[in-house]
């Protein structure tokens, strides 16, 4: 049995203009110690998927269907107090911009200690000691002094380390990282990715790595799920997807990025715009930007189907 098993997850935003199906039937599973790269562009639903796993979707958004099984329990069926316990010990999350998730008026040490005391019956002193230990584990030099710092006194890279320390404070089984390095400089990004790799290896944590950067998943992920307009359009091992992308969107994404497949005079851009969830075309959502489109694409929403061993795509042309 996989550690995390997401089945037909659906989350919608109920707007004046209508229902935006931000996550529209997403399924994936993940074993302990493994990394799933969830890849897509803005508005594809990757961040809402992450928030849904932790049941942190705020109105007007609401989870409207599906199951999220973690260690044999369906998180979507738990009551709120049970879910609070699962957040932190079962599944935890780090965000792109750590400044918005840290409280500016408390020291970073006290914020981590509080997270520890939320789940463990330990003294303040012990929680503080644990906070210092965690700061040390995430590679913050001089942790006992830095624990007294306020978030604004730290650099972006250090704040992300603090966020990671807080997220792993109760040793979650699954860590969800939403664009954890996008706001950081490239040299700092490399260090944060190395840190996540080390933590994973030491604690056997599974990682859902959400990113728009195919370079990052090429380095870090075991399996990939490519999202477009609220759905997973391709899923497979990182090697299979990079060797032979099946969905026309995945193929186009690879061709549009400089530095993949050698130096080229011209990039192959994907025509059109990133889709508006309230104005999706009928049938396949990608069809109005797709070079392989045929009449049948307008008729049915293609299901995710196995096109090669353990390699699925949602496309009638693949």
């Amino acid at each position, binding site marked *: 049995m996989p550690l995390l098993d997401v089945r037909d997850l659906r989350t919608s935003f109920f707007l004046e203009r209508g229902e935006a199906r931000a996550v529209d039937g997403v399924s994936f599973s993940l074993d302990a110690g493994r990394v799933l790269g969830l890849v897509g562009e803005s508005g594809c639903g990757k961040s809402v998927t992450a928030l849904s796993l932790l049941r942190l979707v705020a109105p007007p958004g609401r989870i409207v269907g599906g199951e999220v099984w973690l260690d044999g329990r369906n998180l979507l069926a738990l009551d709120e107090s049970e879910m609070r316990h699962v957040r932190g010990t079962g599944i935890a999350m780090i965000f792109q911009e750590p400044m918005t998730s840290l409280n500016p008026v408390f020291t970073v040490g006290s914020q981590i200690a509080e997270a520890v005391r939320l789940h463990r019956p330990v003294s303040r002193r012990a929680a503080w000691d644990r906070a210092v230990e965690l700061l040390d584990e995430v590679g913050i030099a001089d942790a006992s002094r830095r624990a007294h710092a306020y978030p604004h006194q730290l650099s972006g890279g250090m704040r992300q380390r603090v966020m990671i320390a807080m997220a792993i404070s109760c040793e979650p089984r699954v860590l969800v990282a939403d664009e954890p390095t996008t706001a950081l400089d490239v040299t700092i990004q490399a260090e944060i990715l190395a840190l996540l790799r080390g933590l994973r290896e030491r604690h056997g944590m599974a990682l859902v790595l959400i990113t728009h950067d195919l370079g990052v998943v090429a380095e870090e992920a075991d399996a990939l799920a490519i999202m477009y307009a609220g759905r997973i359009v391709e899923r497979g091992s990182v090697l299979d997807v990079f060797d032979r992308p099946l969905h026309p969107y995945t193929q186009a994404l690879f061709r549009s990025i400089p530095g993949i497949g050698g*130096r080229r005079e011209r990039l192959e851009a994907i025509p059109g715009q990133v889709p508006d969830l309230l104005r999706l075309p009928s049938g396949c959502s990608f069809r109005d930007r797709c070079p392989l489109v045929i009449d049948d694409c307008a008729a049915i929403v293609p299901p995710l189907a196995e096109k090669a061993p353990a390699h699925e795509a949602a496309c009638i042309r693949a």
Partner: protein
Amino acid sequence: MKPPNDGTPLVEARDVRKEFVLGGGFLARARGRVHAVDGVSLAIAPGETLGLVGESGSGKSTLGRLLLRLIEPTAGDVLFGGRSLLGLPAAGLRALRREMQIVFQDPYGSLNPRMRVASIVGEGLAIHRIGTRAERRARVAELLDLVGLPPEAADRYPHEFSGGQRQRIGIARALAVGPRFIVADEAVSALDVSIQAQILNLLQELRQKLGLTMLFIAHDLRIIEHLSDRVAVMYQGRIVELAPRDEIYSNARHPYTRALLSAVPNPDPRRRKERMTLGGDAPSPVQPPSGCAFHPRCPHAEEVCRTVTPPLVTGRDAHAVACHVFPAEPPGKE
């Protein structure tokens, strides 16, 4: 792409410096000076695209604005077509403004939401009193077509467009007055990858069609590689390495450049690499380290690096490096 020619550079910076004074504000903790740009000299040939890469706080955007004289340097000189921008009277500077324009990163924040696209794109023409009203209208239509927007776009407002389309509007605005030199400051960084490629292709087409000279500022080395003839690497207000593109990407010498290149994720899952990580964050620009600003993070730092700031020295293959330990290779050995 055009190779740099041997004639007069179109744009030249001579030991240009910019200090910002900190403090005096409501919540200010400390007063101090930031040497945002700390003695930069470079020249961009007509038709050339110079890529300028650096991390946040390296001074790359400040340098771009100094070259356009959108901000005043503290010291040094900036020349355009061989003429100093600094001594120019207001009228002369205004005339030169037609020659040089900027495209910003944020296509949301840099367009006035209350103006129609026709007014945004045509504003520069009106300011410079170019053409009659009807001629300006025709020129706007021509510009929209040039950047791949439909003619109806002229009568709409910025919020009606997506990020990529807004960046096209920003490019049309920059091109309206017929500039020869464009500073593109992180012009594609805020865009989704599928849209990024559209805008990169557009910039490339326009450069060829209009013979533009460009300073392309970005933090993404893959994008810099795609577009640049030469590449300058900036760290803490200084150029630490400057060379033709292939030299930078296959023969980088400065340890900072090599760390940057090593940190770029390799888009090939079969060749996962052990990255060279620097350790430590970029130093505070208020209290820069003595000597070479990179020495506290440099794995190769020697005693001299702590005390003497290495000058940027050009060696063979037009490859310039500012490093005591890995200096440019002398020109004689070719």
